[in-house]
């Protein structure tokens, strides 16, 4: 007796899932090429800026994704980024070493990840509250210890990748970036591989979908959740390090500016997948880059309106206008052993 239900062919499912995103990407590509023909330098500038603007968003989204795939909602990404940006900044000011500073930022994020895991996995506190605790903690600590006028000893500089950097459009956009931006692109593909092609990823997804099933097969649910939230925290820490050590070169109060929350929208838009999140982050990054460009273009629109663009996009995404995404089934639910 063959009772398997018919499911639509793979390409149809794929199209239904990603068609919207792919379609708009294609449209954008055409627009970009047309614009490039008109004005090469400004197009390249916008695109390069898109990649850089998207970096903290992709990293934040990856952080959220690793947590939620293991069923821990992390709305403390903002706080993890902010404190990591601050600690990374301070370590650089004290030691003058950029590499150490980045490591310090990553560790800070990881420690905050461990705190979130402790609150939501062990103490089983409401995860939204746990994340909020981290956000407030980071805002308070950085605000209190912040001293004006400090600057870093140098910034992470762009490293052109030889002849690759000379390819028109693609070269300056992808192959002439500072280190954290490169690492981010690698992390996207690494996360994709880890999540979908390894034992670790399979167990992580199982723990996020049906923890009891994983438990009955001898998978340690608590361990998986701790490890993934801490891993995610480290990635958010890298995003923080990007802000102070690669993008700006100094620290300002609340300089994350809501990127941690936008990152969550990016993650949802990307349907909880690394590649999808990357695409979504590029779109958000593009909106931000356009915002700068439009302000220079001397349009007769108050700049506050143009500045709203990325946040408007966030609201549209979060309100569910774009496709139907299904979060991991156990997302946000603490696991009780029997």
């Amino acid at each position, binding site marked *: 007796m063959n009772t398997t*239900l018919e499911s639509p062919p793979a390409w149809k499912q794929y199209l239904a899932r990603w068609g919207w995103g792919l379609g708009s990407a294609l449209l954008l590509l055409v627009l970009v090429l047309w614009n490039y023909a008109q004005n090469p330098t400004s197009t390249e500038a916008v695109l390069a800026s898109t990649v850089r603007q998207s970096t903290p968003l992709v990293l934040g989204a990856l952080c959220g994704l690793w947590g939620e795939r293991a069923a821990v909602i992390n709305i403390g990404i903002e706080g993890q980024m902010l404190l990591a940006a601050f600690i990374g900044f301070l370590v650089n000011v004290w030691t003058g070493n950029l590499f150490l500073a980045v490591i310090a930022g990553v560790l800070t994020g990881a420690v905050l990840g461990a705190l979130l895991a402790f609150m939501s996995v062990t103490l089983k506190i409401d995860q939204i509250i746990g994340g909020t605790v981290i956000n407030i903690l980071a805002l308070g600590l950085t605000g209190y210890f912040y001293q004006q006028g400090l600057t870093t000893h140098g910034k992470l500089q762009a490293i052109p990748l030889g002849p690759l950097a000379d390819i028109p459009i693609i070269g300056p956009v992808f192959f002439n970036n500072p280190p954290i931006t490169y690492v981010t692109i690698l992390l996207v593909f690494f996360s994709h591989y880890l999540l979908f092609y390894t*034992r670790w990823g399979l167990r992580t997804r199982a723990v996020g979908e049906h923890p009891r099933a994983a438990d*009955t097969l001898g998978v340690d649910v608590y361990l998986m959740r701790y490890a993934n939230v801490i891993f995610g925290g480290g990635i958010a820490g890298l995003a923080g390090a990007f802000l102070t050590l690669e993008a700006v070169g100094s620290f300002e109060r609340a300089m994350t500016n809501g990127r941690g929350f936008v990152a969550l929208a990016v993650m949802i838009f990307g349907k909880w997948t690394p590649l999808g999140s990357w695409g979504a982050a590029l779109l958000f990054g593009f909106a931000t880059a356009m915002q700068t460009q439009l302000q220079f273009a001397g349009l007769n629109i108050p700049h506050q309106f143009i500045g709203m663009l990325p946040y408007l996009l966030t609201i549209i995404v979060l309100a569910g206008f774009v496709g139907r995404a299904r979060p991991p089934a156990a997302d946000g639910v603490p696991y009780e052993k029997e």
Partner: protein
Amino acid sequence: MSETLALEVRNITKRFPGVLANDGVNFTLRKGEIHSLLGENGAGKSTLMNIIYGLYSPDEGEFFIDGQRIEIKNPHDAITRGIGMVHQHFMLVPVFTVAENIILGSEVTRGFTLDMTRAREEIRALSHEYGLEVDPDAVVEDLPVGIQQRVEIVKALYRRANILVLDEPTAVLTPQEAEDLFRIMRHLTERGVSIIFISHKLKEVLEISDRITVMRRGKVVGTTTPAETDESGLAAMMVGREVVLQVEKGPAHPGEPVFAVRDLHVLDERKLEAVRGISFEVRAGEILGIAGVQGNGQTELAEAITGLRRVESGAITVDGAPVPDRDPRFLFERGMGHIPEDRQKHGLVLPYPVADNLALVAYYKPPFANGIQRNDAAIMENAVRLIDEYDIRTPGPLVPAGNLSGGNQQKVIVARELSRQPRFLLANQPTRGLDVGSIEYIHKQMVAARDNGAAVLLISAELDEVMSLADRIAVIFHGKIVAVVEPGQVTKEQLGLMMAGTPAEEVL
């Protein structure tokens, strides 16, 4: 079947707060046998199996596998000892493929990468060897329940299980799927797998088992074989007294019509017409049974009647007066009682204490409320009284309803609904998944309600239940009542044919 023991447990004792779930239990499983474990809901069968699988640790007791004393501290220990378990609620990740579900926790890898090609081959090989056809690439949520269960069995075999625990595997299956499962079980035992089969369906147990062990209130009552016993013998062992498998009831004395629906049309979730012009009336002091294969509009009919689903057209009347659309409370206040189809979803608030669940329909008025304040004393007093009166086995009135066994959860609902002495009672699948003792009890209560003058509407997919309880039977097929008959005038086979869509004129 040989006499060597695959598994032996000695003296297992497990205490939960307020309950002695297993009390010095001894159990043996011979190589290659099907050994059924029978007992009422809450008798301790599932607890014992969860202990054997390492999900609970026992307070006392020893395990032996192939004569060797071993420790089982967690599922991982059980799996390495060759014990596999198919849980009552499947432990499958719905969005994973069959292969992903099977390898989870015992993955094959090449370097760091999952070796799905090898996994698929191994699963196919297992499927062939044991006659369990599954498609490794199918996504589990797209599969029917029977196939999902097969995936669970393959999952255990993939871990080289030679002792298989099946926890109420037939509860979710259609009769055909159950036959299929039995065939697979026999096939497995031929290949040396030993099976512990948990059920409370007596017929099945007699059909499939080599030996049968009966548990009651945490203790083993005895072990027997199908040759030595029959249904009533097993039922008596389970419950501890003679059980009346046939409902005892006198003739009905129907009075005035209490409840009626006329030309009712209702849509289902997908906006398709599920109830297509149904009319009937239920008189005081009678039980009208609605018999039908599930999915023929019963759920939508029940929801429309109780005000949970919008009525497209047609009328619902109580005592001849029309009922305003969509207002459950209006109906409750006019004396409707409702035993819903899904007790956990719609009948109870599982995390609430038993006492609150017992006050759920009338919590907002005296004696349970003083103005906007609840009257805890009255709620407790009501709970203590009903727990005693309806024999609800709970450690106490303040225990969450979710901690009770299925039969006792249903008793909470029955107690709540019947203690209000409803004038109209809708009972939708009132005994689904319950053991003989609880079924007998609930049937008795429904007959008592009828004899007190209530109009009872019984919706059930169990033919035996409708045949023995109802005073009139309406057969539902594709959203229409296709025949109304009296139980004495039809055979089970005739009812079955009409339920399957054969026109009444041809059958009767």
